[in-house]
């Protein structure tokens, strides 16, 4: 295909507020990206199948009232879910960052145990164990994963910023072990919080109390990826807090480059 290039829809509604840097990140790796208001998808003015990637950006969609991501998810669930499932089955890319990750979990697209989507959410991003919004940088370690576009190798330790109040990844208590083992087995866990030496540690290194230090996961197919840290805020080295100390690192860019490489190959 590729005549219009790789087309990316950065989804927005009231309160999504990271769409600008999200759009720029994909633009800067060569994608043809545009903002798409979910209202235009719902009323049929725009069609998700015209795109290769759906980007659920960070922010406070719907004010994050009720629960982070809940309003956004409920708005698109009825009218669009079936289309999104087809989109995923076509092996296109769905990325959810922070609030976007919360939306994907509320939609039942992640972790997606036993299918592309679950009727009800199988997980939740619950309020941080510190009971507060936290904006700071953390380390995450890359796991052995089947995500189609993560270029980092198992064991790589990278730093990214977080900014959330609800990021504690949880599974249903009665099925926690089962689901977790399933996810590990299917290589769905992409990154886990670690300390500066790469050890899995508790708070503050695990900033929200996620089980198994989970920071980002993908679905079984490996084309839906959600994470709490913000790769789009780590696209340039000067965004890194150690920029004036050691020149900084742009660990986030790699994620977007990986997506482009995958999509270019595939479509």
């Amino acid at each position, binding site marked *: 295909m590729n005549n219009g290039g790789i087309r990316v829809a950065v989804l927005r509604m009231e309160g999504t507020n990271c769409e600008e840097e999200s759009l720029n990140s994909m633009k800067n790796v060569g994608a043809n990206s545009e903002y798409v208001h979910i209202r235009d998808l719902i009323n049929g003015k725009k069609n998700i199948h015209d795109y290769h990637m759906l980007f659920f950006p960070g922010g406070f969609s719907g004010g994050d009232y*009720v629960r982070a991501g809940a309003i956004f998810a*409920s708005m698109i669930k009825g009218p669009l879910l079936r289309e999104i499932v087809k989109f995923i089955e076509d092996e296109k890319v769905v990325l959810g960052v922070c609030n976007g990750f919360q939306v994907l979990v509320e939609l039942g697209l992640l972790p997606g145990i036993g299918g592309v989507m679950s009727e*009800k959410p*199988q997980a939740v991003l619950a309020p941080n164990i510190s*009971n507060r919004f936290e904006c700071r940088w953390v380390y995450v370690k890359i796991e052995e994963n089947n995500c189609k576009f993560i270029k980092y190798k198992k064991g790589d330790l990278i730093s990214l910023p977080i900014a959330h109040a609800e990021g504690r990844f*949880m599974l249903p*208590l009665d099925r926690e072990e089962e689901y977790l083992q399933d996810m590990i087995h299917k290589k769905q866990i992409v990154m886990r919080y670690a300390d500066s030496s790469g050890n899995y540690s508790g708070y503050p290194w695990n900033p929200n109390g996620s089980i198994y230090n989970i920071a980002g996961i993908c679905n079984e197919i490996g084309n839906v990826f959600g994470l709490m840290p913000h790769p789009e805020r780590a696209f340039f080295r000067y965004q890194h807090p150690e920029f004036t100390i050691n020149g900084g690192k742009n660990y986030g860019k790699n994620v977007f480059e990986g997506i482009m490489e995958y999509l270019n190959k595939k479509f």
Partner: protein
Amino acid sequence: MIKLKITIGYKEGVEDPEGLAVKNSLKLLNFGNVNSVKVLKVYEILIEDTEDAKKEAEEMCDRLLVNPVIHDYRIEMERV
């Protein structure tokens, strides 16, 4: 009109950071005898009279208000 009262709380065993934070603050304020604090949220929703208010309330929970992974809920109704 019907007043739906939907009360949502964490399931047994799910840690409630807000409850913990409130408990700690109360302790610091010298309420030494506080044992535990649980935080619940209540949505009081006024709807036009309808046949099946209960079912409607359940649907609201299902579609928006509740995440079954961590939440329990209770619905009360009252004609007003």
